[in-house]
């Protein structure tokens, strides 16, 4: 109550750290793009592996997906940052170790999205293609994937939006993203209210247009 009455907002001071903010924003975007792209590649590879009829191939992929879906992302980030280098007995660059957990996490979800898109295509499409004499590669490329990618796009955009927000967890391993940059500015200015409000607004400004775009995409795919 008292705070609300006497508190004098001062965004000017907080926003004067332009250089730091810009760098933080850049780091957030870089990790988002990098881990989403990496996860997408993993998702396509693992999604295709799941279609192989050998259990020796599908079972490890299933375990990978389940491990990353059923453990908290924060634990994964910390584990890959602090524990993996001990297991491997190698020194990994900080930026790389920090992004590893995020990438593999995105990969697990992308795998499911990819697999879901493919198996959503009617069985008749497969049998009609095979009956025409198409090989597995031909029917995948010309018949299944063109239809499946359309259905994969909306869930993939949604997962990417979540992924961008998740990069804020890099805060715990001291990667100077938006969130961590905010905490540095707080310790300099003692202005947590303005700083963390600014951080939230920054995420919102990036993501809100993306969600609008995702909604439009979804409406178009549904046609």
């Amino acid at each position, binding site marked *: 109550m008292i705070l609300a009455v006497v508190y004098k907002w001062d965004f000017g001071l907080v926003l004067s750290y332009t250089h730091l903010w810009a760098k933080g924003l850049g780091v957030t975007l870089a990790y988002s793009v990098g881990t989403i792209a990496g996860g997408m590649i993993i998702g396509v590879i693992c999604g295709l592996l799941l279609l192989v009829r050998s259990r020796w191939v599908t079972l490890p992929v299933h375990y990978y997906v389940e491990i990353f879906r059923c453990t908290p992302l924060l634990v994964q980030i910390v584990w890959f940052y602090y524990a993996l280098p001990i297991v491997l007995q190698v020194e990994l660059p900080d930026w790389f170790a920090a992004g590893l957990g995020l990438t593999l996490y995105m990969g697990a979800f992308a795998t499911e999205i990819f697999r879901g898109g493919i198996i959503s295509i009617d069985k008749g499409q497969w049998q009609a293609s095979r009956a025409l*004499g198409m090989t597995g590669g031909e029917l995948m490329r*010309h018949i299944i994937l063109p239809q499946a990618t359309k259905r994969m796009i909306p869930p993939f955009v949604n997962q990417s939006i979540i992924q961008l927000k998740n990069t804020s967890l890099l805060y715990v391993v001291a990667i100077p993203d938006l969130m961590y940059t905010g905490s540095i500015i707080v310790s300099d200015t003692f202005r947590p209210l303005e700083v963390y409000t600014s951080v939230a607004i920054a995420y919102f400004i990036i993501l809100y247009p993306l969600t609008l775009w995702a909604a439009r995409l979804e409406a178009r795919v549904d046609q």
Partner: protein
Amino acid sequence: MTSSSEVMVKVEGLRKSYGNVEAVRGVSLEVDRGQVVVVIGPSGCGKSTFLRCINLLEKPSAGTLQVGDRLVDFGATHSMPRGRDLARFRARIGMVFQQFDLFPHMTALQNVMSGPVIVKKMPKPEAETVARDLLAKVGLAAFTERFPRNLSGGQQQRVAIARAMAMAPEIMLFDEVTSALDPELVGEVLDVMKQLATDGTTMIVVTHEMAFARDVADQVLVMDAGQVVEQGRAEEVLLRPQNPRTASFLSRFHSTIGERKA
């Protein structure tokens, strides 16, 4: 049709089981070039499974299958073709399905071109000529640019027939192709099939259309519980069935079979 009776398909002792259930129990059949074979029988009798075994959409458990000069022996361990070899085997056999299964992201024309272009690597202009001719033949010259969703069931099924024919198959398989159609659309599809038969296309047709069997079939195969219970020339099987099970199955259709005899 042709004077020399060249055998196009020869099936011997074909069996197909799913676990403990045997859907096809030792079916044999010989189809000459230009012949139309109609397979009838109650639903669940294994006639569709039998048909799907012929282009190896189902892998038979036992027996032999010869299409053209290619013999597959399912008793032998490694005779089942795989990969590209299997694809080539299927490319010589056309198949049309109950649910049409057209490619929804392609126009009617692109659907018909898909086999020649993707499988045979035929140049597109050439494939387009083939496809336009076939679409005209099935009465859809004016619908080449339509997507499947903008075509009626009967039109879709005719595109599907043209799509299969575009591969210039040695034999055509029809799996209950009119069962999913509204009654008033059945005729247009059957007319196309009759035309193919007249043109000398070798066909195996699984159907419930007894009038079609009577008018078009050279040979009728009656299946029940996975076995052939009667087999022979159409008029003999349909009008003078020897087997009581055939007789009882056909009695349900007698008005249809006899209608043009009156």
